[in-house]
């Protein structure tokens, strides 16, 4: 969805940077968002606070809240997908092999 929405909206997201959690993702506020999303999915409360402060400083509180909500949504959706054994049709997987390689997720148990 990132690759598709980025291409369709004439932005240039660097999926490899997102996958590595490093700077240079190529979207406005992208580096602060990657840092915040990474911290949201992690266990380091101090880093979560620091990344939240940095994101608010760069954008505003409402923007951070929207990002926090999206992260929360995918804490929900990932458990839904894995808890119900959701799988993608083979054709969909084939069409996304490049993205799968970039994210390094082809080996995951959750690949069904």
């Amino acid at each position, binding site marked *: *969805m*990132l690759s*598709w*929405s*980025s*291409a*369709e*909206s004439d*932005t240039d997201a660097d999926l490899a940077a*997102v*996958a590595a959690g490093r700077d240079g*993702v190529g*979207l*406005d506020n992208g580096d602060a*968002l990657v840092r*915040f*999303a*990474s911290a*949201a*999915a*992690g*266990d380091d409360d101090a880093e*979560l606070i620091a990344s*939240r402060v940095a994101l608010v400083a760069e954008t*505003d*509180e*409402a*923007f*951070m*809240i*929207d*990002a*926090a*909500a*999206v*992260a*929360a*949504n*995918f*804490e*929900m*959706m*990932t*458990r*839904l*997908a*894995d*808890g*119900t*054994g*959701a*799988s*993608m049709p083979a054709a*969909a997987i084939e069409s996304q092999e490049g993205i799968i390689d970039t*994210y390094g*997720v082809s080996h*995951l*148990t*959750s*690949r069904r």
Partner: protein
Amino acid sequence: MHVRADLAEAHREAWEHLAKPGSWWTGEQRLEVAKTVLDALSDSEPIPPWGSISAVEGRLPASSSVPAFAHDVAYRIARHAGTLTEDWYVKASEELGPLPYVELVGVVTTVAAVSSFYRNTGVEVPEFPAPVSGEPTGDVPEETTDAELNWVPVAAPADQTSAVVQAYSAVPGEFANLWRMSSAQYMPAEEMVDPTWQRREGGLTRPQTELVASRVAQLRECFF
């Protein structure tokens, strides 16, 4: 901190939803499981995927209205969803029943979403409401069927392209709650086909939204 009204309302409704009888579990049972999920998510020394919370003394209520195995299932999904296998699911659904299992997953995902939002924004997770008394409703779709794209049964006819959309369709209360939350947290379902959708001017663009989504999914080791 000012949370937009639709999002605050979705989370308030989600918490109330947890406390009400579902199709298969009472409100009291759902809240017991919800507490185990919160425990799992905040566990500083998580029990490994091959362990079980019911085997650890003092971790579950002394008097529980929920089978210990249901707590084990909830803990595993909450903490180690990326490790689940079909064999594990078959055992869990045989023990709990396929549709009660789906409802249990719904409880886990609701708690995971709301508690994540509060943690992300630096606010204490609110207390659960008091349980609403009453027996499980037994509410089911007219017909359920096996799904090619999911382990769990779904409302008939099964979708051949989108496993996530139909995952809770056999348990109507969880289905409705999921999409109410997703609409407020992510985007309304009807907008998902629009790569330029934005909730408000100055808010997250669609690529920014998907950046957050993909990073969280990657770190959760969720292939989907």
